[in-house]
């Protein structure tokens, strides 16, 4: 275990340093790059904080969809297996379940990368 500051704390502080100390000194393309870098630090700060819980949740969602897969398989393999089955399955029930699970899995990624983005659900734009 590392001494404090934790990874999340440091990333938060790097983002603040870039935003408050460095950005005002720059313009144009350099300013844009630093703004993007600061935002990536905030993404990683959330990842450091939320990551462990999100992984547990992801494993449980994938486990329900792929009950025949080893429970301790790497997440990358489980996700690749899901992609394969989604591409080849002809079972609408499975595909509907996959769709629902993918909404949740994508929501997890957005909780890290862009919180709030998934509040919009295109109500009224989906054919019934």
């Amino acid at each position, binding site marked *: 275990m590392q001494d404090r500051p934790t990874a999340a704390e440091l990333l938060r502080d790097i983002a603040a340093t870039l935003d408050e100390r460095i950005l005002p000194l720059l313009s144009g393309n350099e300013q844009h790059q630093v703004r993007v870098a600061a935002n990536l630090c905030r993404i990683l700060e959330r990842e450091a904080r939320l990551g462990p819980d999100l992984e547990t949740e992801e494993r449980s969602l994938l486990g329900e969809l792929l009950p025949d897969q080893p429970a301790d398989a790497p997440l990358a393999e489980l996700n690749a297996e899901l992609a394969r089955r989604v*591409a080849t399955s002809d079972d609408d029930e499975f595909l509907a379940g996959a769709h629902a699970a993918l909404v949740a899995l994508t929501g997890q990624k*957005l909780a890290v990368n862009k919180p709030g983005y998934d509040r919009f*659900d295109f109500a009224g734009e989906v054919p019934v």
Partner: protein
Amino acid sequence: MSGAPELETTGDGLARFLTGATGRATTVSDLRMASAGARRRNVLFTATTAGERRELVATIIPTADVQIQPVSVEAGAIRLGAEVGMPVAAVVADTDDPSWVGGPFFVSTLVDGESVPRQILRLVEADPALGPTLAHQCGAALARLHAAPLDRAPAGMEGPGDGHTPASFALEALREQMDELLQPSATFELAYRWLRDTAPGDDRVVVVHGDFRNGNLMVGPDGLRAVFDWEGSRLGAPMSDLAWMSVRMWRFRNDHLPVGGFAVVDDLRSGYEEAGGTWDDATYHWWKVLGTFRWGLGLAGQARQHLDGEFPSIVMAASGRRVAEMEHDVLMLLRGAWGRS
């Protein structure tokens, strides 16, 4: 920034080119860079011929290897747009010869107005009637373009190719991009099979703009003044233009207003239909899903280009973390497609 000497050389090249193209001695002054896009440079300048001054814009493609299609095709599409009554910045001259100013380019008239999306949305906030007007004008402009006789399309304009409908052609390109993903995406596989299974069979092609959206419109308080950025123009499906301007990326956080963040779909649709276009809801939706999906693949491709060293950039790297936004949008648009959820 070493803009000044470069601009001076550009000015000399433009003066020589315009003198040759118009057959009248032309001088060029007051050169300034407008907002430079990722690949092309827009240079504003004053051209003086026999004492008469004109404000013009040169759109220069700096390196030939990033060109999507020859400038002559793009300039021809803009001329066609003008001919059928679309508001455009009229083309004065164009050349595929890169020697004048360091890249192929075309010169067009300067149209005054606002083109920055958030600023356009501010104009609409200030005048609530402007949003519907603008969407109506966009629909009408596209209906006119789509009604252009195909034999008026610029020589060399690309289309779906033999044996393809616009939809099957777009799907094939999508599959190629999917096969290059660094990790498979179950969401994209799901979207792909839906697109494949529901693809419109319509093989009719028209001249499409190819990138018709908030961001490529010049707008004033009076409404639509010009449609620009025609580099993606080609032969394609009419509904693809209408759907593209309705994907979430171009709403600039005004998510509840599908058309560019400034209007509801009915405003676009009525403008299109009143100007003679035929609207189809299912095809519109299909192209909206495809456009969102393709943007997601583009973002993933940028992250790949960063990671494999082809184009290392923190901005390209960040795109990888935006793919999930497009996955979410695609999943929402496909709600109910398999009976529940």
